[in-house]
C-alpha cells in the first residue's frame, strides 16, 4: 500500500472531507446526508443538489452491490473535494486492485436502454441515470482501489466555513 493516499493526506492536499463507511446498504443514507450538507454550502439550487446526492448514492450502490456476494469488510470511501468552480466526489471501492478501473463510458456513448422496463429489472438504469444527473463522470484505479469521480460544476462558497 505504498503511495496509497490516506484520508489525512487527502484532507491536507485538498482541504476536503473523507468518509469511510462499511459497504452495506444501510450506510448509503448517511453518505447522502453528508453530500447533501456539503453541497448546500455551494452555489447549487435544490434540484442540482438532489441530482448530485442521487448520483453519489448510485455510485456507492455499485460498490455495495458488488460486495453482496463477497462479504468483504473493506469500506466504501467517499471523498469530497472542491474548488472555485466545482466539486468532485470520489467513490472508491477499496477491494479493487491496481489497474482495475471501473469502466465508465463517455456520456455520449451511453444510450438510454431501448426497453427501460427490462433495463430497470436488470439494474441497468443506474449508470445512464448518474451520467444524466451530473456534469462529469470518470473513473480511475489506484493503489487505494478503483474509483468513480463525479463532478458537478458550481460557483464558489456562499459562506466560507473556515475561520
Amino acid at each position, binding site marked *: 500500500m505504498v503511495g496509497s493516499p490516506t484520508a489525512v493526506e487527502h484532507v491536507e492536499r485538498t482541504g476536503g472531507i473523507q468518509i469511510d463507511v462499511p459497504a452495506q446498504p444501510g450506510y448509503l443514507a448517511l453518505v447522502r446526508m453528508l453530500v447533501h450538507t456539503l453541497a448546500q454550502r455551494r452555489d447549487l439550487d435544490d434540484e442540482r443538489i438532489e441530482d448530485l446526492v442521487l448520483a453519489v448514492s448510485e455510485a456507492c*450502490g455499485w460498490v455495495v452491490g458488488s460486495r453482496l456476494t463477497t462479504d468483504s469488510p473493506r469500506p466504501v470511501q467517499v471523498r469530497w473535494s472542491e474548488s472555485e468552480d466545482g466539486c468532485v466526489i470520489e467513490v472508491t471501492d477499496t477491494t479493487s486492485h491496481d489497474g482495475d478501473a471501473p469502466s465508465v463510458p463517455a456520456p455520449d456513448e451511453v444510450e438510454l436502454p431501448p426497453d427501460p422496463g427490462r433495463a430497470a*429489472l436488470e439494474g441497468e438504469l443506474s449508470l445512464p*441515470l448518474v451520467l444524466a444527473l451530473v456534469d462529469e463522470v470518470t473513473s480511475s484505479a489506484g493503489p487505494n482501489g478503483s474509483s468513480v469521480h463525479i463532478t458537478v460544476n458550481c460557483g464558489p462558497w456562499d459562506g466560507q466555513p473556515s475561520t
Partner: protein
Amino acid sequence: MDLGLDATERNGFVVLAVRGEVDVYTAPRLRERLVEMVSQGHHQVVVDLEGVDFLDSTGLGVLVGGLKRLRSHEGDLTLVCTQRRILKVFEITGLTKVFQIFEDVDAATVVASSE
C-alpha cells in the same frame, strides 16, 4: 432510514402510500410488500409516491418488478407522483413510458374497464 408503507382500499384498488427513502437498503421491503399484495389477490395496485423523499434505481427496479408481476395476473400497477425530483428519475430513465403516472389518488382510482 425509515420506509413507511401504508395500504388502503379504494374503489377496488389497493393504494400503497410510500413514505421516506427508497434505496438499496429499503427497496427490499417495498418489493416484499408488493409480492404480498399480489399473493393476497390484490391485482389493481396504486403506488402513491407523494411521500417519497428519495428514490434510486433499485427502487425503480422494484416498481417495474411489481408492474410485471401484476400484469401477469391481468392486473396493473400505476403511480401517483407530482414531485419534480421523483418524476425526473422516471423521465431520465424513460420509465414514464412504462408507468401510468397520476396527479393524485382520486385520478388513479377512477373505476374503468380493468379486466
